[in-house]
């Protein structure tokens, strides 16, 4: 509920900024001289070209900021989830290789937080504050930092949800130049994380009747169960731009439902993602 408020407040963060930057000419004026700041923060793209190099109709500044703050909130969630785990992993029995992998992921998520905050600041706005998180989800996952399998299950769900969250808002920032590209560059990293976490879970499960693959099969949770079903609903879709992928020809026969669902990841709407993460947000 408070979480929802944060998103509602984004639109009120800096109303003057929106008014100032509604036109392309004024936006470019606003972004002039931003190079110095970027050099200091080591952001590998120039915000000055946000609209200059964009194709099609560039997204409005308030849409861009809304998407960036939405992404930032999800990155806050992931970054803190992994940061908290680093000292707990040895006690959970995680092997060294696993600890190293989680450290890589934790570092990426922390870098995403820093990057998104820098971008929002550079646009003349103020990043949304970090919410207060409860990774037990109100007691549903009480042993998330003592039960290694549960930890990995929650990690998988966060990563897969993150991939779907970015995808779900891509259409809003079509033509968004460097910011769109940065969002895509984060999005594929989340997918790499998801793939690895899934492989870690596969390696720990002796039950071969459960599909735990690097990719998402139909709307399956990969054995986690109904608690996370909302993060996988809709992934069973096999129709892309009116083309039924399942019916397309394969080497022999057709692609079929399983491969068709796996070969395209699906987006989630903002409301769907907010409902999924709401149990982890306490203020």
């Amino acid at each position, binding site marked *: 509920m408070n979480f929802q408020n944060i998103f509602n407040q984004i639109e009120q963060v800096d109303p003057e900024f929106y008014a100032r930057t509604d036109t392309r000419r004024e936006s470019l004026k606003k972004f002039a001289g931003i190079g110095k700041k970027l050099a200091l923060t080591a952001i590998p793209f120039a915000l000055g070209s946000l609209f200059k190099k964009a194709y099609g109709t560039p997204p409005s500044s308030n849409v861009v900021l809304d998407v960036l703050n939405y992404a930032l909130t999800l990155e806050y969630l992931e970054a803190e989830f992994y940061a908290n785990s680093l000292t707990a992993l040895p006690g959970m029995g995680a092997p060294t290789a696993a600890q190293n992998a989680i450290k890589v*992921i934790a570092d990426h998520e922390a870098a995403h937080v820093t990057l998104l905050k820098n971008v929002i600041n550079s646009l003349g706005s103020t990043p949304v504050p970090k919410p207060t998180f409860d990774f037990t989800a109100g007691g549903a996952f009480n042993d998330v930092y003592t039960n290694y399998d549960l930890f990995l299950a929650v990690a998988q769900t966060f990563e897969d949800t993150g991939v779907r969250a970015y995808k779900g808002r891509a259409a809003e920032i079509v033509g968004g130049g460097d910011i769109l590209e940065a969002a895509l560059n984060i999005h594929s990293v989340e997918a790499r994380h998801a793939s690895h976490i899934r492989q870690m879970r596969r390696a720990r499960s002796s039950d071969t009747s459960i599909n735990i693959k690097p990719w998402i099969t139909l709307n399956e949770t990969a054995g986690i169960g109904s608690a996370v079903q909302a993060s996988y609903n809709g992934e069973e879709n096999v129709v892309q731009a009116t083309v039924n992928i399942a019916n397309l020809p394969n*080497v022999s026969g057709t692609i079929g439902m399983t491969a068709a669902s796996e070969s395209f990841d699906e987006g989630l709407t903002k409301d769907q993602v907010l409902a999924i993460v709401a149990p982890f947000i306490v203020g």
Partner: protein
Amino acid sequence: MPKNPGKQNETFVPPNVSRRHFLAYAGVFGGLTTVALACSDDDNDNGSGGVSLGTGDVAILNYAYALEQLEAAFYTQVVASPFSGITDGELALLTDIRDHEIAHREFFKLALSSNAIPALSVNFSTIDFTKRDSVLATAKAFEDLGVSAYNGAGRYIQTADYLVIAGKIVSVEARHAAYVRDLISNGSFAGNDVVAMDTGLDLSRKPKEVLSIASAYINTKINAGGLPS
């Protein structure tokens, strides 16, 4: 030069390929020596001649279609003649990847309809399909290339629906990339050769750079002059 061109030619063609595809494939290997000699870095320059990708969003979609053709052809061969020592689990997941890439290829072919470029002839003469290292190194190169290609192309797409489709595909390519990388070296799923540690951002590559890299594996001359850049 191919390690074993006769065998490759024999096993590469899937049983149900159309006549047109078969001729394209046969062309790859039948004329391999001369075509390979004729290859140069200029093949994918923006000049005239060659297979045109078209312009605007069509060019971007054809660009994606070209890359998916390359990946699908590669994994079709990988599964048709698995490398020595492959495990059942590896073969199952590499078969999944083959199916995903074929799904992507056939999707673009159908979606582009009359705007689609023809089937490309591919050149895998530098790949030793019998060797694990050769196959996985190529798979890693193709998957990371694909991820960086979609990431770099997104900014040029004008139609929101196409951007969403590209997004749906690129994350699957990233899942593949991470899996293949982990097969080569566990824990390298997002290594700092592809993901910058200071920003946590994956690589992007411009279409021209991608086509230049891919041209080592594609005989068909591609005219990318209509690609936005």
